[in-house]
């Protein structure tokens, strides 16, 4: 049986909790699709772990809102916050449902992944080639979001996944990167990683 973390009230600003729930729920969707389509069990398990973290955040946020509401006016002002937080929780649940397809050994038809990789333009998995200009560079040096509107959401090196890798992490030959973002940026990123595109254009 799954372990449930004990919930105790902690004074954390609502804004921080909501921000983390929003960021995590969006990251989880992309990770979950990646796990399902690339049939990656470890990545799927990471998504399930994140989901239970989001559950904890949802409890904490609910408590914050209860403490903050003193009258009917507060309640009206805060109901929107709790509805949106609930929706982010639902999104992270959906991500966990997708991950469960992999962890429960159902899997998606291999042809799906094959076709998906051809038609999906916003999410790719790419291996860093030895000729890539990215090798040896820190992620922040690549300036990916500003330059091409993409973001590395997971990095696999020697069997371990790093989720949302640190900006100071240096890219190495053989790293497997899951990247999401704008279709054109994704295309450019793939060429950079595979060493087909030789320079970072501003």
């Amino acid at each position, binding site marked *: 049986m799954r372990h449930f973390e004990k919930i105790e009230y902690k004074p954390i600003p*609502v*804004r921080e909790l*909501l*921000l983390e729930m*929003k*960021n995590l729920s*969006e990251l989880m*969707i992309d990770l*979950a*699709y990646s796990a*399902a389509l690339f049939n990656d069990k470890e990545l799927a398990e990471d998504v399930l772990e994140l989901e239970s973290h989001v559950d904890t955040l949802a409890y904490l946020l609910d408590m914050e809102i209860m403490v903050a509401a003193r009258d009917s006016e507060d309640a*009206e*002002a*805060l*109901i*929107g*916050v709790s*509805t*949106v937080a*609930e*929706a*982010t929780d*639902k*999104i992270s*649940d*959906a*991500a966990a*449902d*997708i991950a*469960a*397809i992999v962890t429960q050994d*159902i*899997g*998606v*038809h*291999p*042809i*799906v992944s094959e*076709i*998906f990789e051809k*038609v*999906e333009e*916003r999410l790719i998995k790419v291996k860093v080639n030895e000729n890539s200009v990215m090798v040896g560079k820190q992620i922040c040096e690549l*300036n990916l*979001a*500003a*330059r*091409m*509107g*993409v*973001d590395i959401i997971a990095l696999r090196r020697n069997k371990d996944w790093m989720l949302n890798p640190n900006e100071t992490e240096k890219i190495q030959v053989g790293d497997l990167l899951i990247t999401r*973002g*704008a279709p*054109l*940026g994704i295309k450019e990123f793939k060429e950079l990683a595979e060493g087909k595109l030789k320079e970072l254009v501003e």
Partner: protein
Amino acid sequence: MSEQGQKRFEEIVERFVELKDTSELMMDLAYSSLLLNSRELAEEVQKLEEYVDKLHTDFELLALTSDFKKEEAKGFLGLIRLGVATEKIADAAAEMAEVVLRGIEPHSVLKLAIEEAEETVTQVCVTADSPLVNKTLKEARVHEETGMWILAIKRGGKSLRPKHDSKIQPGDILIASGYADGVEDLERLASPSSSCTPE
């Protein structure tokens, strides 16, 4: 798998990708509707939710009527579950937009969280000296220049969903989503000399 089978499969996957892309667009639009307290954008999300429901049904029917072999059943089940989860994401987006349609003024905390998130939505106004003026969205290449996607154009109090051939006019307000890093680039592109803040 036969050639015909392969073709059918491609059709199912394409349907799924559209389901996935639409559910993600709905999330962006739902957050935008909250940030801007915009009924129009919230209504757009509700319309897309109806579209997703239809898309989802078509997708399931296609998957169920494809002639799969017994040993492929699991793979098809996985595909169907993928569709169910994607539909759930679209539902969640519709619930967010519903807050606006119920006349609940979005709390400042919500706006802050949306603005500070890794993926954010923003609005900028187009001034007369912007290189974007009189260009179609296709020509403007906003996406290539800034990494931001244009979700909607506000003009004369109305929100339009962008099309490739929509021409950008001075005074337009562009609502866009993307990584926070692109916001400044977009502002510079839309209003190069003056600081112009949409109300």
